[in-house]
């Protein structure tokens, strides 16, 4: 696609429900990142994919969070049993490869609100 696409743009859910957030990276980009942006905070790293594998999951805050990537393309971030502290903007970014100087292309994020 022309850019990184994330869906839904906004998600309101009730505490305890599961949610799935989707990221469709730029075609051909092998590296994919998920970040969380809370109000007044910087971007918090969640997970990094190279192709379909996730060599770095160190940022996932608890076992309620999981992510997968299929076909070296679309990625899904799943949050189980959502809590109010999970409310944030979830950003996805992709880059052509994992070289350090590679430019990140970001989606517009999913604003998650847990009531």
């Amino acid at each position, binding site marked *: 696609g022309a*850019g990184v696409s994330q869906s839904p743009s906004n998600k309101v859910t009730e505490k305890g429900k599961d949610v799935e957030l989707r990221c469709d990276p730029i075609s051909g980009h092998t590296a994919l*990142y998920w*970040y969380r942006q809370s109000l*007044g*905070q*910087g*971007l918090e*790293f969640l997970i*990094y994919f*190279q192709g379909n594998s996730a*060599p*770095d999951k160190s*940022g996932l805050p608890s076992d309620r969070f999981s992510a997968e990537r299929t076909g070296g393309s679309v990625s899904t971030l799943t949050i189980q049993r959502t809590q109010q502290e999970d409310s944030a*903007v979830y*950003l996805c*970014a992709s880059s052509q490869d*994992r070289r*350090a*100087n590679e*430019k*990140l292309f*970001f*989606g*517009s*994020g999913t*604003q998650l609100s847990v009531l």
Partner: protein
Amino acid sequence: AQTVTQSQPEMSVQEAETVTLSCTYDTSESNYYLFWYKQPPSRQMILVIRQEAYKQQNATENRFSVNFQKAAKSFSLKISDSQLGDTAMYFCAFKGYTGNQFYFGTGTSLTVIP
């Protein structure tokens, strides 16, 4: 661990004037990259400028330039001839040669006043 600090939560500048956003970082790595990203109200972050640590020359991109002081671990962004479209949140970021993560600061909200 790497840390990135932006000590100015909010700044404002008159249209056509110049403004400088500050960023400091801490790392034990000798080879790394530094970035400034802009996040407008649309939330989609875009790269403004990047600097390779081994290059002494400061990067420039049109009205945007950086002042990279490696010994001081400082990486400030200067915006010249500020335009209304520059109003956004600006994030400083670090990426080491090793490791997979980009480390971001907490951001500076810049408002350009007409």
